């Protein structure tokens, strides 16, 4: 009898552990002006999770993600982070956009929860928290590449800056100005636009009046409207930007002909892109790829812990990530610090296609 009870107890302790799903959290803008990016990020996460679950999960555990909508608002993000960590008890929270991520970073440190950012690039994210893992390089590295290319290869000696008046835009402006000035260029003027405002004409007119060789643009949405208005004001300067220019609508816009930009490398096999499109009805473009990559990194760490029989906590996941260090997913991602290093390309929009014009390997 005692032996049977001991066996039953052992089964009771073991079975639920196998049966229980591993629940992760995500705080992303699913409504509001940033939702176009947020929903794509959500799909990237879900795509990776569905792929793992279709194979039976990790060590018998299915993976679940609880998505919360922060509308890209930092205050809302803090509330939702607390909800996910304190009530749902998730060890990992996926995040996007610099402002909300920076707002959650101190909480991630305090609660030892892994905060995984696959899309935001403000420099402050690099050192915001030891528990904040950036699976995409921060802006400084990307814009240094752009500034060197513009001043050197493209011989653009003067620049004007149009930036979005938020954490990502301001960080991008400061990084570009510092790198371009260091390269030898001169920044003639800079103007902000509000997030979600697609009327760029006043700023374009003012910046155009300084006759720059190049206009550096760092805005996260409304790039097709920008292209239209640049042509309407009969601009003579070159237009340059960063990865944010990899918007399919911008690429398809004939007014964006000649727009030049940096592109953080992220590739996906054709079959995977087709499967994504069949599942969600949208292209497997930059942000879903990045969040798919970020999710596979987290799932690799979970697998590492499950195999080692260790508990899945934020602290254990962070340690596992820095131990594994190199992840060969859809793109090779290396973590020498908590911010990933990847290859960056220089691209140009030509005949409605985004073409690589120069490859810059990671430093």
């Amino acid at each position, binding site marked *: 009898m005692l032996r049977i009870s001991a066996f039953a107890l052992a089964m009771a302790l073991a079975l639920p552990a196998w049966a229980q799903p591993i629940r992760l959290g995500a705080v992303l803008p699913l*409504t*509001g*002006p*940033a*939702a*176009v990016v947020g*929903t794509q990020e959500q799909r990237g996460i879900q795509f990776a999770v569905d792929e793992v679950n279709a194979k039976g999960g990790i060590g018998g555990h299915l993976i679940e993600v609880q998505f919360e909508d922060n509308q890209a608002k930092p205050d809302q993000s803090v509330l939702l982070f607390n909800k996910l960590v304190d009530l749902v008890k998730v060890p990992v929270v996926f995040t996007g956009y610099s402002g909300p991520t920076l707002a959650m970073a101190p909480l991630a440190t305090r609660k030892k929860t892994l905060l995984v950012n696959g899309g935001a690039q403000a420099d402050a994210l690099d050192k915001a928290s030891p528990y904040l893992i950036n699976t995409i390089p921060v802006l400084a590295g990307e814009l240094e590449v752009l500034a060197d290319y513009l001043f050197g290869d493209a011989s653009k000696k003067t620049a004007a800056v149009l930036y979005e*008046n938020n954490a990502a835009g301001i960080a991008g402006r400061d990084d570009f100005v510092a790198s371009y000035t260091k390269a030898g260029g001169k920044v003639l003027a*800079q*103007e*902000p*636009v*509000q997030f*979600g*405002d*697609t*009327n760029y*004409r*006043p*700023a374009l*007119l*003012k910046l155009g*009046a300084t006759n720059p060789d190049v206009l550096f643009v760092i805005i996260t*949405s*409304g790039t*097709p*409207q920008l292209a*239209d208005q640049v042509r*309407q*004001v*009969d601009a003579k300067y070159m237009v340059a930007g960063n990865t944010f220019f990899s918007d399919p*609508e911008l690429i398809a816009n004939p007014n964006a002909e000649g727009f030049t930009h940096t592109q953080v490398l992220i590739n996906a096999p054709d079959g995977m892109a087709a499967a994504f499109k069949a599942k969600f009805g949208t292209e497997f473009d930059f942000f879903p790829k990045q969040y798919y990559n970020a999710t596979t990194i987290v799932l690799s760490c979970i697998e590492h812990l499950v195999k080692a029989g260790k508990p899945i906590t934020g602290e254990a996941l962070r340690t596992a990530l820095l131990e594994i260090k190199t992840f060969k997913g859809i793109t090779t991602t290396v973590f020498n610090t908590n911010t990933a290093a990847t290859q960056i390309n220089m691209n140009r929009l030509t005949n409605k296609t985004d073409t690589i014009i120069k490859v810059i390997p990671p430093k």
Partner: protein
Amino acid sequence: MLWLHLLVNGLVWGCALGMVAVSFSLVFATTKIFHVAHAAVYGLGGYLAWSALKHGMPEWAALLVGIVACAITGTLIQKLLYERLDRRGATHLVILIASLGLSAVMQNAVAAVYTSNVLQFGLPWAARTTAIGGVLLTTAQMLTVVAGILSYLGAMWFAHRTVLGKRMRAVASNPFLAEITRLQPRQVHIAVMAIASAMVAIPGVLVPLDLGLQPFGGVPILLTATIAMIAGGVGSISGAFLVAVGIAVLQNLSLLVIPGEWSIGITFGIFVIFMLFRPRGLFAG
């Protein structure tokens, strides 16, 4: 010549803003309802016109669909929400909160149906530019100016020359007296809401023709239009329109002397100081 470009850009934007301010002013002066959902009606007009266009309707018919649908939406909002709340003795604050809620519901419904992507009408003629006095204007911008001026003149004619317009002014002036003299304020409220909603659909279509459609795009425009209405003098159509144009021009021209991040703050700062000296507005009777 930068000042001329900025001035013209301000005038164009001011005409769009002016249509929103005048339509909001008609509603507020007559019903005393702070109709925040006007921002959502503005957005709805553009999206419905976009849908009509994508279903093969000609441009003029798509604009008409937007205008008529907004007029019907405005009528329903007044009849099914505001009037019911008013009959049940709801305060203006309660109605304001209901309007806020309705606005959120409508905008999120639009975002759910159409996505939050910035949608484009994609009409090449709308983006075609014409040089006027050395300033390049798109066809959409020129249409906005024409529509803005015609809407303003139309609103003035309606308010001062038509029977319904006179009833509207009477109700706005003294609702109690209007009630006992059988001017039927509730019917006037519905008619005004329909007219104002139809009017706000015009910039709701023309502005996105130029700048793209966004589900939440009406909110900042309504905020500025509200300030224009108050600074212009509640109930004054000319005040709302001219101050809206003034704000837009000032915001644009201020770029000549200050960086863009200060533009909105300083423009509205000037109006706050102005209101201290003339709290009833510039054109108050």
